[in-house]
């Protein structure tokens, strides 16, 4: 027990910080923990909302990191996974009046279907062609969603609106509960992903990323392993989509566009490819950067965003987490040197 705690100190610390975050922020605002517990409006509620968005983005980026960073599949159609989850949740709740659990069941089934769809493509094309075919499949979905014929269900280019969210999890009145639900899902998914990557299956996935031919020579059926990663990724992204739909009550067609896949790519690259932790750090950096720039710079925000990404690619290629892992020893040494400087000065 003790060793588990020690080994995963950063993870537990992060979880602890995220649990007390709403109350601490509330305290800064002068709201007592009881008021925060009662979902009083204020800064705490706003920060919870931002955090929920970051959690959803993290889930989505995690799912992309699994197939891109771990299994080495570059898919340009990842937004399909997310958008199917979001749209299906919205349509089933709104037009078919199903309850939340039935809806989630259908979403999982849809996730399975889309993973099988990508699985059909998977052994036939590889590399950049796989990226293009997945882009094609995702664009067909985007076009379907945007088409006027299905406007009754999807809302065409306006987006899906007016989703009736069940009361016990409504983001307006029960936001703290939503926050903890999203946090729990994130923690569970992160734990599952860690286990997956550390398991023999995950190791084979990494081997496939490094050299597929060699993994085949060693006798692994590489398709099975890639498909396993794809399946897990599809489930996670669809779940993230469902959460997105429940939180926003609006699903914009942008979530099905290629731009949203690029968002996942950017988050993963910001945080560090194949690190898993990078997804949370990257999503945090991405969302805060985007939010801060839009608020204080206005329209030219994407310019600075783009410049930041270019700078990252050129100067911090392993992302925040990857660079931290590479340089942590040097950083420690630097701190020690500074500490020595001070201690010798005081003597």
């Amino acid at each position: 027990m003790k060793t588990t705690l020690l080994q995963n100190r950063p993870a537990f610390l992060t979880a602890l910080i995220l649990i007390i975050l709403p109350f601490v922020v509330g305290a800064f605002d002068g709201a007592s923990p009881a008021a925060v517990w009662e979902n009083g409006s204020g800064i705490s509620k706003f920060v919870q909302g931002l955090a929920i968005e970051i959690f959803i983005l993290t889930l989505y980026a995690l799912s992309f990191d699994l197939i891109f960073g771990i299994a080495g599949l570059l898919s340009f159609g990842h937004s399909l996974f997310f958008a199917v989850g979001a749209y299906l949740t919205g349509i089933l709740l709104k037009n078919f009046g199903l309850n939340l659990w039935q809806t989630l069941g259908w979403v999982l089934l849809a996730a399975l279907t889309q993973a099988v769809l990508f699985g059909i493509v998977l052994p036939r094309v590889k590399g950049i062609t796989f990226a293009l075919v997945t882009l094609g499949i995702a664009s067909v979905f985007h076009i379907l969603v945007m088409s006027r014929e299905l406007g009754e269900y999807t809302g065409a280019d306006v987006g899906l609106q007016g989703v009736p969210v069940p009361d016990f999890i409504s983001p307006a009145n029960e936001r703290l509960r939503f926050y903890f639900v999203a946090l729990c899902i994130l923690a569970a998914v992160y734990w599952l992903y860690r286990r997956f990557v550390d398991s023999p299956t995950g190791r084979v996935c990494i081997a496939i990323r490094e050299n597929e031919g060699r993994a085949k020579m060693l006798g692994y059926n590489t398709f099975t392993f890639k498909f396993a990663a794809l399946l897990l990724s599809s489930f996670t992204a669809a779940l993230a989509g469902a959460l997105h739909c429940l939180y926003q009550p609006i699903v914009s067609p942008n979530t099905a566009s290629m731009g949203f896949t690029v968002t996942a790519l950017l988050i993963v690259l910001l945080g560090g490819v194949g690190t898993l932790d990078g997804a949370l750090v990257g999503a945090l950096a991405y969302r805060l950067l985007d939010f801060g720039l839009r608020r204080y710079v206005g329209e030219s925000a994407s310019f600075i965003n783009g410049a930041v990404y270019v700078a990252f690619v050129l100067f911090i290629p392993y992302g925040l987490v990857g660079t931290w892992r590479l340089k942590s020893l040097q950083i420690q040494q630097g701190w020690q040197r500074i500490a020595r400087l001070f201690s010798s000065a005081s003597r």
Partner: protein
Amino acid sequence: MALFFRKNVLLVITLSVFAGLLLAAAQGMERKDFLITLLRGLSVGSLTFLVASGFSLIFGLLDVLNLAHGTLFMIGAYLGWTVYVRPDTFVDLLTPLALTAAGFTAPALWNFIAAQLPPAARENRLLPWGLLLLAALLAFWVLPRYPIAAWDTENFSQAPGSYALMLDQGAPLPFPQVAFEKISSFLALSGLLSIGVLGALGLAFFQPPAQPVRPGWKDLVPIVFLLMLGLGVFAANDWLTAVLSGLNSNWLFLLSVLIATLSGFGLGALMESTLIRPLYSRPIYQLMLTLGMSAIGIELVRAVWGRPEFTMPKPALFSGSGAGCPAASFDAWWQNNCSIALVFEGRVRVYNEILIPLVGVFVLLAVWLLLQRTRLGMVIRAGVQDREMVEALGINVRRVFTLVFGLGVGLAALGGALAAPSMGLSNAMGESLLLNALIALAIGGLTSYPGAALGSALVGLIQQFMIKYGQIGIPIPFTDILFKPSAPIVPASTVLLMVIILLLLPNGLLGKKD
């Protein structure tokens, strides 16, 4: 022959299916409609081809998936517009650009100067950083003060759209007058020159120390040329502006297309040598870099030219509408410069549906000749096949990379400048064309040059026939139902085609098999 057939059964079948579809389409509509749709498809295909061919050359040789290609297409369009509608801005911009760039074109000279320094001083990194900082500060101080006659996106009467509209109406707006007010002209010119010199000197100090090599006169040609150009344009500013704005619109259009293409070439070469080159060992990062560049490019265009869409008037040769129009024969068109010609009794827009496909075919042939008949083309083809082998043979592949990247971007910019009068200018024009080009390349084969042409033509034709059938409807056999493909089906049809073809032939129609 039989062997070829057996090896390419799927390709032959696919092509014959397309031919059959085309014949069926010809049966389903009147001859003039068919012809117009065909020409429109070829026009869209030509623009797609201009983007796709550069993209495929770059991807084939450099293995860089340049997702900023659509944005560069758009930048080409905006640059062409600027030269065509606002030649005064273009002339004003030449001097600062040439003078700033002059410093960077003589690395041999700066290396020679840097090598004179004692090695101990070279160890110190303070000097180069200080020089770079000085150059940056100088740039921040001089550049905003340099007077450039430009449009004002906030002010409607001076917005880019208004200039284009008034030029189209035959009563062009007067260009704004600017003068050196915040800075004296001598200070501005020497400041511009020092930005480049200080920056280049700072970069030279970063180089590892080497034996000083005296620069020959050849090393000094570019810097002297740029200096002369900058100062000459500065001296003859008013005269040049008057000449350009008084020029016949056909020649001005030709000039603007040429300048857009050349600037695209320069922009591409600059991008490759500064941003892409450090990343050849990290392929995925190039993808992110080009995505970032694309976002930056779109924002830059929005900041300079504004968000609203606007048009670019067609040159006089393609905009006549007086007596004798629409022209029924070539002679009639040549005399009246009609914008519309009658081809088999169908009304065809000359610029959109005849000139653009012609330019597309011309570029196809020119680049094909370049690839097949010159030494550079030989190196490119060899590099596409086996890059390491070419390097091992002692060919300076790096220089060829820069050239090819420049060439690819130049082609895209040419496409943009050509498309501007027919499509109009908008911030989103690049993205849809990039998607079209990607689909075309995936269909034709990613690194195959003929494949790019075939794929682009197919994409253009299928889209235009789908649009046409969206108007007249497809009769479904044995029923009375008219199936009308709606607007979203147009892009979906090409995407679906791409998916099907890639699943049948993973390397595209004309791509090489592994």
